[in-house]
């Protein structure tokens, strides 16, 4: 059974310059203890998608519409603001690029962690304290008990992200949504955090939705991949299929434009020309057509739908040979 199911998500923002179509009808689903990576460049709509699932987009400027949004058998769109908030803290954990967004700078880490235990899990103050120490220990913070008395600014960047993860997993969520959780970290610290996420996932069987621009991170921890471009899903499938039998020219070009550390000499770079499209002014055809090396006349006719191009693998390109 799917843990998270999202169908036909549209998000538009009203801005000074008019309506920006950030997400244009995307579907995604996620099973228990599965890691789905949502990959894209800036402006692809990947973070907006995550925030839309969490119901965290600003009500005033964002217009969110979806055909279905189900989590753990419940219809999230039917929930009240109050119920959504309860769910966000408990069944869905969140980790952001900047852990300070989820930490209160004037409260100790211990206070913030034990508060979650008291509010969401109905613990007494003493058990919540122990629970908090266990959590810090679990995310690999040395001398967990002593550090409960520290304030967020007393932790280094990597440790702070660990605290952020501890907050997110405090209620043993079924789903963890992580938006660029390692982008601000150094590579050796990133490796630690990714390792930690993988361990926690194996232990708690939670599903992870990882939003990132880093294809290396995706290759390291994702089971399934969703590639976004200009607000649409252009390719999706198992990580192995997407990386080794790439269907969409955009994904292929993206992979080619990343210099590979594991190859002695990769020859000249083949960058993608141009820049990502302006979501204020999307053309009618395939949004990647203006930058694509394989562009044909029919690419400009309409956005090609996702077509099956292998087992557990779909791509949105007119060149994809659909397989049964």
């Amino acid at each position, binding site marked *: 059974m799917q843990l998270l199911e999202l169908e036909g998500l549209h998000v538009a923002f009203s801005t000074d310059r008019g309506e920006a179509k950030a997400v244009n009808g995307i579907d995604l689903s996620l099973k228990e203890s599965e890691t789905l990576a949502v990959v894209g460049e800036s402006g692809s709509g990947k973070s907006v998608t995550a925030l839309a699932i969490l119901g965290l987009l600003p009500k005033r400027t964002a217009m969110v519409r979806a055909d279905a949004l189900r989590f753990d058998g419940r219809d999230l769109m039917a929930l009240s603001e109050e119920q959504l908030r309860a769910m966000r803290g408990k069944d869905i954990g969140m980790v952001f690029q900047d852990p300070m967004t989820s930490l209160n700078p004037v409260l100790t880490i211990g206070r913030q962690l034990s508060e979650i235990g008291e509010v969401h899990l109905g613990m007494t103050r003493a058990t919540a304290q122990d629970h908090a120490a266990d959590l810090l220990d679990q995310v690999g913070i040395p001398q967990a008990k002593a550090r409960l008395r520290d304030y967020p600014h007393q932790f280094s*960047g*990597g440790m702070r992200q660990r605290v952020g993860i501890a907050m997110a997993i405090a209620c043993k969520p079924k789903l963890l949504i992580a938006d660029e959780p390692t982008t601000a970290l150094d*590579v*050796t*610290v990133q*490796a630690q955090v990714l390792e930690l996420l993988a361990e926690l996932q194996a232990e708690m069987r939670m599903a992870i939705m990882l939003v990132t621009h880093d294809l290396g991170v995706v290759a390291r921890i994702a089971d399934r991949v969703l590639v976004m471009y200009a607000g649409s899903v252009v390719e999706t499938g198992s990580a192995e299929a997407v*990386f080794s039998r790439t269907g969409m020219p955009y994904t292929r070009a993206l992979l080619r434009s990343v210099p590979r550390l*594991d190859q002695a000499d990769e020859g000249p770079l083949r960058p993608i020309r141009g820049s990502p499209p302006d979501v204020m002014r999307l053309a009618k055809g395939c949004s990647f057509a203006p930058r694509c090396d394989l562009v044909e006349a029919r690419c400009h006719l309409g956005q090609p739908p996702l077509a099956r191009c292998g087992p557990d693998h779909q791509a949105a390109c007119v060149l994809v040979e659909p397989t049964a």
Partner: protein
Amino acid sequence: MNALIELRDLAVHFPVHRGLMSGTSGAIKAVDGVTLEIARGETLGLVGESGCGKSTLGRAVVGLTQPTGGTILIDNKPMTRDRRVQMIFQDPSASLNPRMTVGAAIAEPVRLNGLRHGRAAVVARMHELLDLVGLPQSATHRYPHEFSGGQRQRVGIARALACEPDVIVCDEAVSALDVSIQAQIVALLEDLQGRLGLTYLFIAHDLGALKHISHRVAVMYLGKIVEVAPKAELFANPRHAYTRALLSAIPVPDPMVERQRKRIILSGDIPSPANPTSGCRFHTRCPVAIDRCRSDEPDWQEMSPGHHTACWRANELVELMPDALSLSTSDARR
């Protein structure tokens, strides 16, 4: 070696003030005794994590930060701030004056340094520079906010080129850009080097772009260079424990390779450069540190021509920290 830029025992220490009355107490040793050479037309990649001092080193080379020790030589003469050494900054939006048109930003250095005389000659040069970085002449009268990140970085490159420099320090010049745009800028920098014979100091925390553009790579940790080698040699045969851990930490965009890799996960973060430890600075996080690493600072030893490292266990690393990237096996892929 015919070095264009030479750093000899370069040090940049920042005083730490504690309280109003106590004055100076201690120093942050951002750069602590670095000796490096860059040959004319060469790209030296400088890699390290945040706080290792790589940006401070770059700022000292262009003269934005005053060294507190050692010397910087350019063409065997002590360096003073000079149009021949320019910088490309990390954040293309913050490095352009928001109220200055692109044309004005590029023409300014041409005029200030007296490189062209007369309005027509300056404008012609400005158009030449725009063309060189792949921007149309119509960009002249536009403001930075009208451009994408990649285009702004091109403007920053044109402004640096307007000074007709010999050396360009690229301080995280592509890390703020989208993946597809990074490759464009790296390709542009390579193209310009070929045409103009530029020398680059390419500073980055991300090894991807750095590996592509560099001829030699230097690895920095807590204010010191721990390993320098020709690029292919460094990636194929890293001889410092930190370099090996760093390479192992970087994920490769291929799930099959990733599944087979052996990882070296370091514990902890980079310690503060305010009070570096004795011995090898990496010993607090090093998985293979021995007593000697804690007490004695490692000698600078040459492993093969041009490959230097400062690690007591350089000769045993292949067995101690098995090859993380398995270069040879993955080469044939794809």
